[in-house]
């Protein structure tokens, strides 16, 4: 930021220029180069710079308009110069959002599939972030709620012939119910003890599902789970009356369904983000953070610690349940194998790697961990090794996660980022 006063037009142009450069850097690699398989079975790179140019132009125009608008309204313009990584959220987040929003346009079927996977973990990460990042309760059994959500939808759809959109809230509610149920016995536990009990809870749910064969099909799982519909329109590959392709007069394509699924999970993830960001600014979320900072002080201020912890468990679990229901409808088949401890570990790793409590950090970590995992898939057995080394490197260089620091939920004047050294990580 400079002290000199510039005319609004110059400032806006300058800002648009910097945004354009950043967009170019991001999109050139992500969108500009497409891999194709040639007839001979070789891989070739197809440059696709027309789209990059378009995206960069869109970014610049939007930024130009935004800066100009903000200046006329007298809202201070935040300089785009990436001074510190932590402060760059304002820039990275919208670009990430734009890239995510347009993925089905520039990405092929494979990348949309990867996108769905990444988004699922982004959502799980954001859901767990409520429990671990905000309330400071270490939960190693988050996959249990994912499983409850998935089986709730699968069983409701099979036994009562309910559709996805009816079951989605039910799956969330049931998961929240189990969250409260888990919450009760573990309320008195802290730290390591809490981690062990939640870990056990995750395993109990899986073992029950595995052994309750009459209800859940046991190890055979449940298949033929119905796909979601678009306002009643199906995504049949064959088209036909009542299908999405037929209604809009399109050639039936499996890509429609994949893209639709992608936008469903994208919407669900955004909902998770919106709710948790909003809660942070409300008394309930503030109480969660206070609980993470100092539980005893919370009690002394008249905050019902039990209820506050239970709401954190329940709301975190509800989002896990939503994600689970989505997982079931995407896969059309679920079995207990999908809900092992490693899933909990991955989601927790995403939250810790991203930075406890940081929404952007969690999203970035999910992209890096899940998307990056897809990129190095060809290394097969070395994949986990690369993964492990990368984790260690990040944790050594940035011990509080990719994006650390906390934004105050309310401020009288200029709100300042609070360094991660100041905030507590909770005691369980």
């Amino acid at each position, binding site marked *: 930021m400079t002290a000199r006063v510039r005319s609004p037009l110059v400032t806006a142009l300058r800002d648009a220029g910097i945004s354009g450069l950043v967009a170019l850097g991001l999109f050139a690699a992500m969108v500009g180069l497409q891999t194709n398989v040639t007839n001979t079975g070789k891989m070739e790179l197809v440059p696709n710079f027309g789209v990059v140019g378009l995206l960069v132009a869109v970014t610049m125009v939007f930024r130009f308009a935004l800066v100009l608008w903000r200046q006329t309204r007298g809202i201070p313009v935040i300089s785009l110069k990436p001074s510190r990584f932590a402060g760059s959220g304002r820039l990275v987040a919208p670009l990430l959002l734009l890239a995510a929003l347009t993925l089905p346009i520039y990405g092929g079927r494979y990348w949309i599939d990867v996108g769905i996977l990444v988004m699922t973990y982004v959502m799980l990460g954001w859901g767990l972030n409520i429990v671990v990042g905000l309330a400071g309760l270490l939960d190693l059994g988050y996959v249990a709620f994912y499983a409850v959500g998935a089986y709730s939808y699968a069983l409701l759809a099979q036994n009562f012939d309910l559709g996805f959109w009816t079951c989605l809230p039910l799956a969330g509610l049931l998961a929240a119910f189990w969250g409260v149920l888990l919450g009760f016995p573990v309320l008195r536990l802290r730290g390591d003890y809490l981690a062990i009990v939640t870990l056990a809870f995750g395993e109990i749910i899986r073992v029950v599902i595995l052994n309750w064969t009459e209800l859940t099909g046991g190890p055979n799982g449940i298949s033929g789970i119905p796909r979601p519909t678009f306002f009643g329109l199906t995504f049949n590959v064959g088209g036909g009356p009542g299908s999405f392709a037929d209604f809009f007069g399109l050639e039936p394509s499996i890509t429609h369904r994949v893209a639709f699924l992608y936008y469903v999970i994208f919407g669900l993830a955004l909902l998770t983000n919106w*709710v948790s960001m*909003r*809660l942070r600014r*409300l*008394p*309930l979320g*503030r*109480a969660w*953070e*206070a609980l993470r*900072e*100092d539980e*005893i*002080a*919370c*009690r*002394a*201020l*008249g*905050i*019902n*610690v039990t*209820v506050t912890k239970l*709401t954190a468990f329940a709301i975190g679990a509800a989002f896990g349940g939503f994600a689970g229901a989505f997982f079931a409808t995407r896969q059309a088949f679920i079995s207990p194998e999908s809900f092992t401890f490693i899933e909990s570990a991955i989601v927790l790793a995403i939250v810790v790697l991203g930075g406890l409590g940081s929404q952007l950090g969690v999203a970035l970590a999910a992209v890096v961990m899940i998307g990056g995992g897809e990129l190095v898939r060809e290394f097969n057995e070395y994949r986990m090794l690369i993964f492990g080394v990368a984790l260690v490197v990040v944790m050594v260089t940035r011990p509080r996660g990719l994006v650390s620091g*906390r934004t*105050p*939920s*309310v*401020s*009288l*004047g*200029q*709100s*300042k980022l*609070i*360094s991660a050294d*100041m*905030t*507590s990580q909770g005691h369980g």
Partner: protein
Amino acid sequence: MPLLCVSELTMRFGGLTAVDALSFDARAGDITAVIGPNGAGKTTVFNCITGFYRATSGKIALSHDGGDFELSGMPGHIITRRAKVARTFQNIRLFSGMTVLENLLVAQHNFAMPNVARGLLSVFGLGGYRGLEAQALERAKLWLDAVQLTARADEPAGSLPYGAQRRLEIARAMCTRPVLLCLDEPAAGLNPRESDELSALLIRIRAEGTAILLIEHDMGVVMRISDHVVVLDHGRKISDGTAEYIRNDPHVIAAYLGEGDEGLDDDAAEVAA
């Protein structure tokens, strides 16, 4: 009718009797100081009153306009919420990663969010939370001003200097709108000027109608502002009266200066006789 009436309060930890059949009163509108040598059981009494410990036996009765309460056995958060007793801690317990303003807003949790259902509704902008939030913010600003922290409202509480953290903790406790404020060594670690400011702040709080129960080692502060002093030693009350009275009480002098045990016993026998 006193505001707080502690009678025959006993607290045992295994074989150790930290508080032994203690009885004292605290009147509304008074600053009542609880003093005594280290290990006398002062903080234990506080922990019993504020629900952090469950007293082994005895009664702690609190009565004000809002009703009569029996504090022993009441959960800690209910004591603050319904009986309106607030406290601070000997070792400061602020939410150090939250800003000064956020600390004061968390203290008004029960006013900003009367119940969980309304707390959840507020996600969708329902339940009238906007008005409650504005009220909470107003009160927070009032107390920021009272403890001279308005300029630092947006800084993390953990980054404040020690004296400011002490003041903030008192302001935070006052944001719960208590009728009885329990302060555990608020002047510890303060320089003389800060102690004077603290005395002024406590007198102001008393003037606004909140009674204060004060544990303090800084005798300058205690003697200047206390209306009533209770002296503990080894869990028992050895003296009780005005600051002037206890200053000249031989038992108190003995407890603080360590007179021989025989002399004390003789004195006790004289008093008993």
